């Protein structure tokens, strides 16, 4: 491993660690105003939606995003599994199997 790789890993690790830890230290030592608690209470649903939708889109610089069709197709049975079972494991397994099948029949 070259120094270039090692230094990159160490510095990238440092900025990531700070992003993870500094907010904990701030919240621990500060009285959080009510509006901020209210604002942050939407982080879970907003960020999970954003992560999910990001996986359905394909970024093209300077153009409208395209659609990731295989992820969109595989999401449909996965969502159905969620509605029917309310089980995280069932959603994951259904999605993975659906994706494997899509690729098997050449739609992925």
């Amino acid at each position: 491993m070259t120094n270039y790789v090692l230094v990159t890993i160490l510095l990238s690790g440092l900025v990531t660690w700070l992003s993870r830890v500094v907010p904990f230290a701030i919240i621990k030592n500060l009285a959080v105003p009510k509006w901020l608690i209210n604002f942050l209470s939407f982080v879970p649903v907003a960020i999970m939606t954003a992560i999910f939708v990001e996986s359905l889109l394909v970024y093209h610089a300077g153009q409208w995003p395209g659609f990731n069709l295989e992820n969109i197709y595989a999401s449909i049975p996965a969502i159905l599994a969620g509605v029917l079972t309310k089980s995280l494991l069932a959603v994951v397994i259904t999605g993975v199997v659906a994706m494997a099948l899509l690729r098997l029949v050449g739609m992925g």
Partner: protein
Amino acid sequence: MDSSLTFKSGAKDVVPTLFGYIGVGLAMGIVANTSHLSVLAVLLMSLIVYAGSAQFIIISMLLAGSPISAIVLSTFLINSRMILMSLSIAQYFKKDSLLQNIALGSLLTDETFALSMNKLNQTQQKLRPRWLHAANIIAYLVWAAATVVGCLLGNLIADPNQFGLDFAVVGMFIGLLYLQIITDRSKTLKTQLLVVLFVAIAMFFLMRFFPGNIALLIATLLGCGFGMVVTPHD
């Protein structure tokens, strides 16, 4: 998932998310292998950086010989959403020691954050360090192991995606989002669905101008503001 907040229940609750770590971890190891990174470099990266999408970017930028400053800045931008997640979850550990808080934050991921938010709905809005430590540590070790195995097997499996494992992460977020919407009683269903719709549309428009990771951050911030505005006041 029940209301128990022991170390053991943390270990149990994290299991469904492990498929995602294994799927993406294997893929990352294989990409690292084809990019001529050593097993040691992959292991160190997984242990020190510990961030899925950022590690893919780091590997591709290393391969391209990008300046270290550019790689570190990209990593920060991709992982800056951790700031929002940490701010959001830290409120539940205010009474625990600073050291506990630092330890919890150090291994927090998208997945263990989302899992915790689901858990809150089962526990009258309480979390305990031991529960999150269990989920965090298991996820951390599984991630490191999966990336190393991927790197070692890199030459054997040309296309790990043929088994659909890369979809495990998407599937996991579908499950976590759905469970979040149906179990979070602190907000009305209508409010939550409005936020989902708003963020989804915002993502589409933002990705006209920004790569996915940056769009994700802006859409989340806008979505939180939107949520505050549309919440019925009583």
